[in-house]
């Protein structure tokens, strides 16, 4: 088989650990009687993109919000760069599924929001924000309001806001699920070059198998009831072949098929 699968192997976890930007250790999360996550452990290698993939209700967004410090785990802990997470921190930035842009603020002020909360002076944060607005391809829209932008452009604003605070880890909660298919493909290509050029660790939640295989260095398959990591897949051969060739690469197609066959029983 062309793909390599990391199963529970104590030697290998040791090696991965030192290179992990984010480590999730034995996380359990209960909502009242409902067990959303049970004893989940997962490593996120530094500088790579890891997808959390699974059917709806498998707790992938819950896990991402625990890593972000927005939710408290019932037990277990999360380490980012070796430090235990107690709440949101400057080492992590979040990209929201529904963009979460402030409708009363301009694009510039939305992008500069994170910097403003960190106490960066006005002129400095505006020049940083302008740079990232340009980077995501929205130059000229600095003074527009969110309602004047298309869905894809709004998520670019959300991305610029997350990039502008320059944190090590980027947490993306189904960032492309609310944009149209063509924009989505463009976003996926842009994301690949972002992973390559920025020295950041990406955590990417998605429910699209194709998307996960296309963009990920590592895919964690989550299964529901109770939520657990069923397997970790690391595509190996097609990453270097260029964005145009990935979708017709045999390994890409094999992985997509394999994932579907293991997930299909969990989808009604």
């Amino acid at each position: 088989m062309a793909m390599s699968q990391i199963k529970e192997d104590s030697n290998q976890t040791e090696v991965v650990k030192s290179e992990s930007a984010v480590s999730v250790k034995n996380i359990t999360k209960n909502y009242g009687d409902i067990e959303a996550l049970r004893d989940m452990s997962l490593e996120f290698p530094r500088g790579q993109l890891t997808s959390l993939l699974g059917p709806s209700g498998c707790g992938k967004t819950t896990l991402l919000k625990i890593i972000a410090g927005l939710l408290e785990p019932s037990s277990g802990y999360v380490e980012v760069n070796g430090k235990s997470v107690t709440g949101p921190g400057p080492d992590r930035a979040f990209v929201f599924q529904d963009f979460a842009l402030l409708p009363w603020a301009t694009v510039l002020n939305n992008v500069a929001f994170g910097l403003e909360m960190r106490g960066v002076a006005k002129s400095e944060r505006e020049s940083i924000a302008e740079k990232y607005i340009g980077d995501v391809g929205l130059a000229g829209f600095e003074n527009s309001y969110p309602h004047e932008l298309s869905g894809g452009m709004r998520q670019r604003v959300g991305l610029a806001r997350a990039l502008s605070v320059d944190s090590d880890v980027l947490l993306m909660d189904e960032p492309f699920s609310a944009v149209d298919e063509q924009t989505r493909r463009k976003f996926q290509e842009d994301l690949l070059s972002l992973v390559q050029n920025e020295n950041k660790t990406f955590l990417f939640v998605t429910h699209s198998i194709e998307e996960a295989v296309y963009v990920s260095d590592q895919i964690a398959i989550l299964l529901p009831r109770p939520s657990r990591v069923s397997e970790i897949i690391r595509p190996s051969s097609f990453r270097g072949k260029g964005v145009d060739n990935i979708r017709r690469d045999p390994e890409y197609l094999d992985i997509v098929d394999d994932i579907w066959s293991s997930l299909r029983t969990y989808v009604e």
Partner: protein
Amino acid sequence: MISRANLLKVLSAFLLCGAWEIAGRIPVSYAFPTFLDSMRAFFEMIGNGVMLAAYKETLRPLVIGIVISAVLGIGLGLWVGLNNFFDWLFSPIFIVMQAAPLAALIPLLVLAYGIGLTSKVLVVCIMAMPVIVLNTSGAVRNTPESFKEMGKSFLASRTSVLLRIVIPAASPVIFAGLRLGVSAGFIGAILAELKITPTGVGDIITYSRSIADYPSMYAAIFSIILLAVLFLNLLEKIETILFKGNQRGYVSD
């Protein structure tokens, strides 16, 4: 160049005044004067200073009452909206206040606070405050969760989340409450002058009616409506200046 929106406003006012004039000429009642007669009385009262003297009296409880209601109402509303305990403590009071038949309760207020300014300010507040408090608390409680999560994940302090996210997000509904509250306050001010002691504009209304000078009576009523409309427009302008992007819906539309 006059804009389409303003043109429509003028047209609507013109239609209303025309209907008034026609109704006055039929006449629908001998106690209902024509628009032109009322306007004549209106400008006469402005000319001889009666109107100015009346508004000096009326505006005092009105302005004091509205300022108290706005500041205290928004403050309390934020508090009630952010804290379940204060919601439990205060919400019923304002719901009762809003539903209470105020005119029937005015004698109680007079017994307790006399016939002076205090009672009149209280009437304005009781009319204006509940809707401001209830709107503010409701709006604050319904702040989209993702906005708050966004604030937290980008390291906003509790104060920043309140000032930069919760209040701006709630502002359209808060301003809607202010508009309703201010209109109710105007009604309260006149009600107080009719029911407690006839002073100011209330005095013009009561006195003109008693001597069957209906044009003056309707001129006084017209003046208070005009003032309320002007004030509500001012409020709308303030809202537009403060929260520009809010004018057109939410991002998630």
